């Protein structure tokens, strides 16, 4: 606990921030500045014009000198053009997973935090048993996900808690046990560990332990920002999803875009199982797309094939998908020597729900392509890639189709460093290299 408290803003400062209806720092700041506030208060001196830059500049290299001059692969993600985002209303509404009435409705341009806000607003409006609480959520939250929700739905439904993650989690479990649908926010995924006992030994086991009595805490949803953000270092960059996947009883969901976040979060809130919902914070402002304005759910435990391909399957989730798409585009342009039944092509799959995960979609794809690469930001050891690789090998129909070992492109088995983040995350060049290595095996 001591190490943790050292890295965070002294509580008196946070208390002061939360007592103001709209603190100047957060009103003016982007999420990166919010992160800076916690990591290095001195960086508040950054030029204000930085925060009015276009969304595409909010990337992992926002504070570096940019890509090396001769770089061909590791270029900043252009969120304004990536095919992973729906840049037009038509693109958004053509999603076959959306219900018919939504596909005929209206859309609105939203970034990730706005989509999360919209989902929570809908949930709060449609069901009085929904509540939202956590540290600093009342004024809008340090990433703005709860902007205006307290004013709209009241301070008995949207409120700040004391600064205690185990208290937040236990409180949420108590509410859910009584039939409420609490949305508990953990301010950064890095600070969920004080609540781990409540999640593992209580929330996840509540229904199982209660047996025939039938009580459960299925209404609980735990939201937390996760993933790298350029300069979050040890305590503002973590992706702990693997830890939650080893806990039967919890659902673990991680969206890649605003439209996905809204649909998956609504599904999580309405689900009758406790859900851990991780939000890649680098995308809070960077990922902007058209999002249907009405309520809709996207299916839990269902992966999505984002791009069809014949030669390699790439599996990922969250922000790394954008790096995968860049790598795939470059690989498809460069690799002409090896292909079957036409030009070389790569299939890209977004897991979306990390556990219980959609094995069938992945296995079907690998049976077609014969090769698989799993990409994730968190450490390679005991990561999601290990589970995917083992499952592919165990399946007799898929194993005999493998043309190369399942490869993993992931964070090294170290803590997330401040100065070396760009050498740690699975960047475009590393993913490109894995595709090449798999094809040349």
């Amino acid at each position: 606990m001591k190490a943790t408290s050292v890295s965070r803003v002294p509580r008196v400062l946070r208390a002061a921030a939360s007592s103001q209806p709209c603190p100047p720092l957060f009103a003016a700041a982007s999420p990166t500045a919010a992160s800076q506030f916690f990591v290095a208060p001195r960086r508040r001196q950054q030029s204000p014009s930085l925060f009015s830059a276009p969304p595409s500049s909010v990337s992992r290299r926002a504070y570096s000198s940019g890509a090396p001059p001769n770089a061909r692969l590791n270029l900043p993600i252009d969120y304004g053009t990536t095919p992973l985002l729906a840049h037009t209303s038509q693109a958004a509404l053509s999603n076959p997973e959306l219900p018919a009435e939504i596909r005929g409705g209206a859309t609105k341009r939203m970034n990730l935090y706005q989509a999360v806000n919209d989902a929570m607003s809908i949930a709060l409006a449609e069901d009085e048993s929904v509540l939202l609480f956590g540290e600093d959520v009342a004024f809008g939250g340090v990433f703005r996900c709860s902007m205006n929700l307290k004013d709209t739905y009241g301070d008995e439904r949207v409120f700040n808690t004391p600064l205690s993650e185990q208290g937040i989690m236990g409180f949420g479990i108590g509410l859910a046990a009584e039939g409420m649908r609490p949305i508990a926010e953990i301010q950064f995924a890095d600070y969920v560990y004080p609540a781990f006992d409540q999640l593992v030994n209580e929330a996840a086991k509540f229904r199982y332990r209660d047996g025939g009595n039938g009580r459960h805490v299925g209404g609980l949803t735990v939201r937390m920002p996760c993933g790298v953000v350029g300069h979050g270092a040890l305590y503002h960059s973590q992706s702990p999803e693997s830890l939650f996947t080893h806990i039967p009883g919890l659902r673990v969901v991680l969206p890649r875009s605003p439209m996905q976040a809204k649909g998956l979060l609504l599904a999580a809130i309405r689900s009758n199982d406790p859900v851990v919902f991780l939000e890649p914070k680098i995308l809070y402002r960077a990922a902007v797309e058209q999002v249907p304005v009405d309520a809709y759910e996207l299916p839990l435990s269902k992966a999505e094939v984002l791009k069809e391909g014949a030669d390699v399957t790439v599996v990922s989730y969250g922000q790394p998908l954008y790096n995968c798409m860049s790598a795939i585009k470059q690989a498809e342009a460069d690799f002409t020597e090896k292909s079957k039944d036409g030009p070389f092509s790569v299939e890209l799959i977004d897991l979306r729900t990390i556990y219980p995960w959609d094995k069938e979609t992945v296995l079907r794809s690998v049976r077609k392509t014969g090769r698989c690469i799993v990409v994730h930001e968190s450490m390679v050891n005991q990561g999601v890639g290990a589970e995917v690789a083992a499952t592919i090998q165990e399946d007799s129909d898929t194993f005999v189709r493998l043309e190369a070992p399942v490869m993993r492109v992931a964070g090294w088995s170290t803590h997330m460093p401040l100065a070396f983040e760009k050498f740690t995350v699975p960047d475009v060049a590393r993913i490109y290299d894995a595709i090449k290595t798999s094809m040349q095996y």
Partner: protein
Amino acid sequence: MAQARKMALQDGGKPVLLECLSYRVGHHSTSDDSFAYRAKVEVEDWKRRDNPISRLRKWMEARGCWDDSKEKDARETIRKDILKTFNEAEREKKPPIRALFEDVYEELTPDLHAQMKQLKNHLDKYPEEYDVGEYEGGKSSLES
């Protein structure tokens, strides 16, 4: 207790803390031998002098609503009831093995369903290695 409940519920409610001082007479659990870390005489003192059951009994006798005859009858009746229920429970079958996989989530996930089937196949393959007779429905409860 009654006053605490009253305070907790009126005027929008407020929390109440009750600290009830007592002494743990028994071992912590069947896997704990507490005399390894405390003297027997300490336990005997509490058991004899400040036992809540003994105190309540004395209070009831003083008010004339309890006596030796009632005590004797109650002990016999309660003992008989407990032993009867104990014997019934011993003869009951354990829950179906299927319950091992249920209630982890609201619905059985594909993973759990596949694992249930895997266990069923294993029990079919090695019937002499497991006694499934003491479970309701035996191994057939594992069928979907």
